[in-house]
């Protein structure tokens, strides 16, 4: 028995000494911050940041080649901690979320063709411009939903909808949308214009029952041009998110019915 204990202890001791020596004389010097950042990260190795594992992201962070805050799993707390380690301020910006600027559901916007092919907006748009009559509107083939790392986007009635609570504002959907109709807006904003068609009223009406006609009523009702709550691009009203309108009454007064209060779909689970 004693021999056994001695043997095991001996083996353990020898191993420990060898390891200790190895660590001291053989180890490679690395930036100590890499280890600290790795520790601060969740360690899930999910790859959501685009780097091979948390360690890879940590190295990129320390090297300054990756933006802080790309770790969706760790969230703000994690970003703040990393910022502390790296000695830079976490960008103190307001939370921004994606907004799909189209409300032309299947029952409101016309279709002009029977699309037969891959369920992806980019290729659908490359096929005769898409099957939707409005060439600016959401095709509903879910390219944005596919790239969303948080599954915050879902397709309802031919339209993409963003769940505000899940969205982390990474902007991947903004980049992938072939119609360029997704925008990052402040999460606090509640009044939105859900249309992306800058054409004249009559041509909008030909393809969609709820398209913005550029009638400027929203502008008038919210205090006129001087108030600066809206900007116009062609015949399309856009909310000035730097100075958003507060009076929810204008929503009901929109004759085109493309204005809503809190457009963010909430899945309820």
């Amino acid at each position: 028995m004693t021999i056994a204990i001695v043997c095991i202890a001996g083996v353990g001791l020898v191993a420990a000494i060898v390891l200790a020596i190895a660590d001291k004389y053989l180890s490679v010097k690395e930036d100590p911050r890499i280890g600290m950042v790795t520790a601060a990260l969740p360690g899930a190795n999910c790859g959501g940041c685009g780097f091979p594992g948390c360690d890879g992201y940590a190295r990129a962070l320390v090297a300054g080649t990756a933006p802080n805050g790309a770790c969706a799993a760790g969230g703000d707390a994690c970003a703040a901690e990393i910022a502390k380690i790296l000695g830079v301020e976490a960008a103190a910006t307001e939370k921004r979320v994606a907004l799909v600027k189209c409300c032309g559901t299947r029952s409101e916007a016309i279709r002009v063709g029977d699309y037969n092919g891959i369920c992806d907006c980019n290729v659908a748009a490359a096929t005769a411009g898409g099957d939707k009559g409005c060439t600016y509107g959401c095709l509903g083939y879910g390219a944005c939903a596919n790239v969303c790392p948080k599954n915050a986007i879902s397709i309802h009635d031919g339209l993409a909808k963003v769940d505000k609570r899940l969205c982390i504002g990474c902007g991947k959907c903004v980049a992938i949308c072939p119609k360029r109709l997704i925008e990052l807006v402040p999460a606090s904003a509640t009044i939105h214009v859900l249309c992306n068609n800058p054409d004249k009223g009559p041509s909008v009406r030909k393809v969609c029952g709820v398209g913005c006609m550029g009638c400027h009523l929203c502008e008038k009702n919210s205090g006129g041009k001087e108030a600066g709550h809206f900007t116009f691009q062609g015949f399309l009203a856009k909310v000035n998110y730097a100075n958003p309108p507060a009076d929810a009454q204008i929503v009901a007064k929109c004759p085109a019915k493309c204005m809503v209060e809190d457009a963010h779909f909430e899945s309820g689970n």
Partner: protein
Amino acid sequence: MLLVGAVLVNNFVLNRFLGCCPFLGVSKKMDTALGMSGAVVFVMTIAAAVTWCIDHWLLTPNGLGYIHTLAFILVIASLVQFIDIAMKRFLPPLHAALGIFLPLITTNCAVLGAAEINCKQGTGFFESVFFSFAAAIGFGFALVLFSGIREKLAHADPPRCFRGIAIALVTGGLLSLAFMGFSGLVKLPY
């Protein structure tokens, strides 16, 4: 013959069901599977040599055969650590390729299993090392095969309840079924 026997007939994963954890864990991509196989071959061969020495010169003479499992765990764990550190220092390219797999092997039962089998059979030093090497090759072979299938399965669309590890287990079972065909091909002494 020993090589064929250990690689095909008594394949560690598919017939002895040793090392199932990395078999399922790192077989999603062919590249990682190759890296893992390399690391296993490397560690298993060295571990066999070291454990044989320990067993033969330290434990057996002292009549301590009954604690060899404990001793081997200790030795293999520290050995892997040591290799990790040494490799990082002297062979950085190899470390970059195998590095992340080394810590995983620390607890790999295939390594321990090979050491156990060796000391149970009481084989000579070179035979032990060679057997471990062959077993590791067999493990790597199964791992690479399996990763090929799993890469193919990545495009498959199984029912939701079977996605991920469940379907991998079913596949592993079928692969093991196929390997049954090799039984009797080589009569091993153990």
